[in-house]
């Protein structure tokens, strides 16, 4: 009994996801509602600094003031940055490997002062450049579920 054990064990967690029901909030819900109804984006303008941010939220953090002025934006923008994701990892939302390659993009929606991130529908890095114009491609309104996947991806505008 005084010998050191050579076998080092590990314990694996139960293969069950921890469920959540996150509130989207009124501001975010308004964004998804607009997508469903008109397939355009909606941002919100700070009454103090004038910045337009998308998705909309209740306050401007920099000015610490409440915002209520919605700004309707086109569903198109410009690539600020992108990354063709080639490394495998587990998607915590499914428990499975996220399908790769896919392209994660930082997109500046026309008229917005901040960045919106989503998937760009092109995985050949040679065919994407910063500054390219992209257009959101939506699900059919009847298939929309009021979440980020209502935007299927952004297509590069040829």
């Amino acid at each position: 009994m005084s010998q050191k054990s050579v076998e080092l064990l590990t314990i694996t967690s139960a293969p069950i996801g921890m469920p959540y029901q996150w509130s989207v909030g009124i501001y975010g819900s308004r964004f998804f509602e607009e997508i469903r109804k008109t397939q355009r984006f909606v941002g919100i303008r700070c009454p103090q600094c004038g910045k337009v941010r998308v998705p909309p939220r209740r306050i401007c953090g920099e000015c610490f003031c409440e915002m209520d002025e919605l700004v309707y934006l086109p569903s198109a923008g410009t690539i600020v940055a992108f990354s063709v994701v080639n490394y495998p990892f587990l998607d915590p939302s499914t428990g499975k490997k996220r399908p790769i390659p896919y392209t994660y993009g930082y997109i500046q929606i026309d008229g917005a002062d901040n960045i919106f991130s989503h998937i760009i529908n092109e995985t050949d890095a040679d065919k994407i450049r910063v500054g390219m114009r992209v257009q959101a491609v939506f699900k059919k309104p009847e298939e929309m579920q009021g979440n980020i996947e209502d935007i299927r991806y952004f297509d590069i505008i040829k």
Partner: protein
Amino acid sequence: MAKRVAIIGTGQTHHRSHRLDVNGREMIYEAVNRALDDSGLTIADIDAIVIGNMDHFESINYVDAWSVEGSGGVMKPIMKVTTGGTTGTSVAIAAYYHVASGMFDKVLAIGWEKNSESDTTGAIVTCSDPVWDRYSYSGAIPSLATEASAYMEKYGATPEDAAYVALRERTHAQNNPYAHMYGRPITLQDVMDSPMLAYPIRLLDICPRTDGAAAVIFASEDVAEKLTPQPAWIQAASVRHTFTWFGDVDQRSGLQSLQRASQEAYRIAGIKNPVDDFDVAELYLPYSYAGLKWIEALGFCEPGEGPQFIRDGHTNMGGKIPVNPSGGVMSTNCIGATALLRVAEAAIQVMGKGEARQVPDVNRALATGFGGCWWSDVMILGKEKP
């Protein structure tokens, strides 16, 4: 009464990719005992404990409660402080305030992570907003790649410039027997030839994932000098967790949080010229390009001059301001401990306990933390009481 505060001892594990021989609590116990030994204290001398890590990296809720057997928290005040990558500096700063408040004389700060217990990228993805970002987010690399590309475009920096940073970190790590990458030197060419992860970032441009723990003991001015001949006094601590939304951070501009936090800390500590006023810096640089750009935010050189500053060797051992004698984050990254290791290593330099990695005659040292939504923490340590 508010008290002045010093670090009187540090401890860390020998950091490795997998520590199957110990569970998390036992790994913490190793670091704590080393910090106690370094300070000449026993656990009975410790008045309070602050601990931090990232919940979803080991999936342990209420780590303060779970850890007590290893952290020494049985029948002591212990609280958990956690802020992502900045957790380690947040823990250090919390321990600092514990003592500065006058409520506790000797406080133990612990940071730890057992990254081997989860899929690190999968766990990092859970830090993104579930409603907006989690669907597309793929970890920190793309946003770092954004920053790197924009920096290259603006100032003409090259991948080779960044490789010099990677080389420096790994070369320094060869002097640090605790480093995960100890005993594994690399060449500039190795960095340039390593697999591309997301342009322009290659495998050897980014930090590894590590199992490890760090512990640092903070003491008040009433006891610090009695306990150690050369305490490392905390001269300033400043934090900016500027942004809440990923999309509000503009990686194309300077690292705003680090500029603001360092300017505030410099003002408090009376730093006029960081390169002259600091003798060494332990910076939270998660990838090589940060080593070019973030030293500009810290005022080591003007915007765009980072690459030349590095190539001139100013940040190497023996340079004007050696950066990361420990090997830094790119040589050891047990995430909840990572920023605390910066503070511990800065304290080691001030206390003159750095052995092979010691910079001669350190009077003042800078430590930083980075994490969350491009957040920064800054601490200034020195031989002189503030």
